[in-house]
């Protein structure tokens, strides 16, 4: 075997046993290091011990905004009778997880959707960078869902069809100012014993921020 190889012209590259072992060891070390990279998977979020979600209350609860008319009712159920005039709105919590805004609108001016007992509700996250929008707190004279972080504004009277990044089509309040890339999703509502409840089927829409 060696005699045969030695007989070949010198220009042909030969690998001696030392080089062979060196290559093998290098490849082995490189492979081991690379396979250890897979341990980085452990950095990804785990499903955790969250457990099954039980029955969740759909009724909106008043939010924690300071200086608003509902501040002293923070955490209590949102009632239809509280919205006694057009333009009255409140920041609310929904299903213990989402922020939302409920507004009494002038139904004759509302375009693109219909109100329920004069009320409409929107997810309060700003589609820009997920700050929580407010109603009449920063811009008391403008009927917009206003985001404090980068001055985004959504028009609750102009409901348009928009598309999420994943292609889901939805209805939402049109962006009229600032950097938000898409409309603020509407939350379908129902009045249950005088309380206002959000009844969306596809919650994926409201998980936009995480």
């Amino acid at each position, binding site marked *: 075997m060696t005699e045969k190889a030695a007989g070949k012209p010198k220009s042909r590259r030969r690998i001696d046993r030392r080089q062979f072992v060196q290559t093998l060891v290098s490849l082995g070390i490189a492979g081991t290091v690379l396979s250890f990279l897979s341990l*980085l998977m452990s*950095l*990804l*979020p785990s499903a955790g011990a969250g457990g099954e979600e039980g029955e969740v209350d759909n009724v909106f609860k008043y*939010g*924690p*905004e300071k200086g608003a008319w509902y501040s002293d009712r923070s955490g209590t159920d949102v009632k239809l009778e509280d919205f006694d005039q057009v333009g009255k709105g409140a*920041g609310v*919590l929904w299903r213990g997880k989402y*922020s939302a805004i409920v507004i009494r609108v002038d139904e004759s001016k509302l375009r693109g959707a219909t109100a329920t007992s004069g009320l409409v509700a929107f997810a309060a996250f700003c589609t*820009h*960078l*997920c*700050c*929580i929008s*407010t109603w009449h*707190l*920063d811009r008391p004279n403008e009927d917009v869902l206003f*985001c*404090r*972080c*980068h*001055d*985004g504004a959504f028009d609750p009277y102009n409901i348009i069809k*928009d*598309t999420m*990044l994943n292609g889901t089509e939805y209805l939402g309040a049109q962006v009229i*100012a*600032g*950097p*938000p*890339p*898409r409309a603020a999703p509407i939350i379908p509502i129902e009045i249950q014993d005088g309380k206002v409840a959000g009844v969306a089927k596809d919650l994926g829409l409201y998980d936009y*921020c*995480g």
Partner: protein
Amino acid sequence: MKRLYEWIDGRFNISPLIAEGQRSINFALPSTYTRQNKSKIFWLTYPYYYVGSIVAFLAILQGITGLLLAFNYVPSAVGDPGTPTEAYLSVENIMKFVPLGALIRGIHQWGANLLVAALAIHAFWAFFRSPYRVGRELSWLLGAVSLGLALAYSFSGYLLPWDQLGYWAATISVQIMRSIPVVGDLIAQLLLGGTTLSPVTLVRMYYYHVSLLPVVAIILVGAHILLVLLQGVSEPEEVWKPRKAGQRQAGPLFGLFLPQQIIPVLILSLVTLGIVLLLGAFAVQVPGDPANKFLTPQFIAPEWYFLWAYGLLKWVGWLYEVVHFVPPATVFGIDLLSAKVVGILIAAAMFLVLVLMPVIDRGDEVRALRRPLKTAVGVWAIGLLSTLTLYALNEILSSYLSIPIGSMNLALGSIVVIVPVVVAAPFFVILRRHAVKGSTKEA
């Protein structure tokens, strides 16, 4: 002492290293306090050469105070939104009950602010002086990456008290990170353990802040300083002449490290320490309300050195509005043209230009006064960062000066466009004339 040194040397054989170090260190910083030029105000002559040593001093101070704070801080954010978590309570405890706790935290807080300020001066000055010529590209690269590290430090540290400001500043940053095209969500999940802030995020941030970043910083900054010692600093413009890589000049500018160079370092460090102590003792910022994910605070702003990026995002949104540009929902399956992604891409491009300066700018000339275009671009960049910072404060200025937000935005938005150009243009015109004159004279 000598016997101890000999004992160590006998085991580690460090004397050749020490000898080389002693030779190198005398080229570390220029000093006019030499036999040739006995100016007593040597450290005023080349003050900017010493800004780096202020950064180093502050970094050490941050290490010491951070170590002390870590003994009393609890990185736990479990709890209902809006209620104080253990992290929040432990910071309150440091501020109220830990002996000298408030002072230590004050020093750490102001040390971080001054460190970034000193670092910005260090970086801009280096930009104008083009010290990244052949042989020194690596110093520049390490420096630019260290700048990023400093920002990562401050970002992770800002969140630790788990108060409203830190929480929302971090929320915005996380969402910005998520909107990096294609890989954003994956990066956010790997770094933060999720796509929103949670107790897991706090623990990770704490880990980065006190463990991972220090190790990386010591290696990178150590290499940065080692390179300065081995290569010497690039010479001041007055003695500058084109030369080959690695060559250095044992000129009259370099006094001995001890004492000519170290004295200004010590003086500056003491002055810095004095400032930090005063600010830390009398102007420490207490944590605001506990973090509440259901409520964005009214005037939300990141730390002052991130304001330009915050302003950039606002400004792009305003610009779109002014020109009535409605970006398409998706381009190639991502929202490429939305204001936030455009803002991110602009900021990323700026950092990339900074990192790649040694590749972009390869000429021989280093004197800022002979580089009209580059100097003008640098001035423009400073103008842009300052005006964007101003734009970030539009809400606060509007309510403070009671100017309607629309006109405020119009005023500030135009300032962002006009002022940097107006400031930079004369530099370009005058320096170009100067450069033409200079070159004819030399010829």
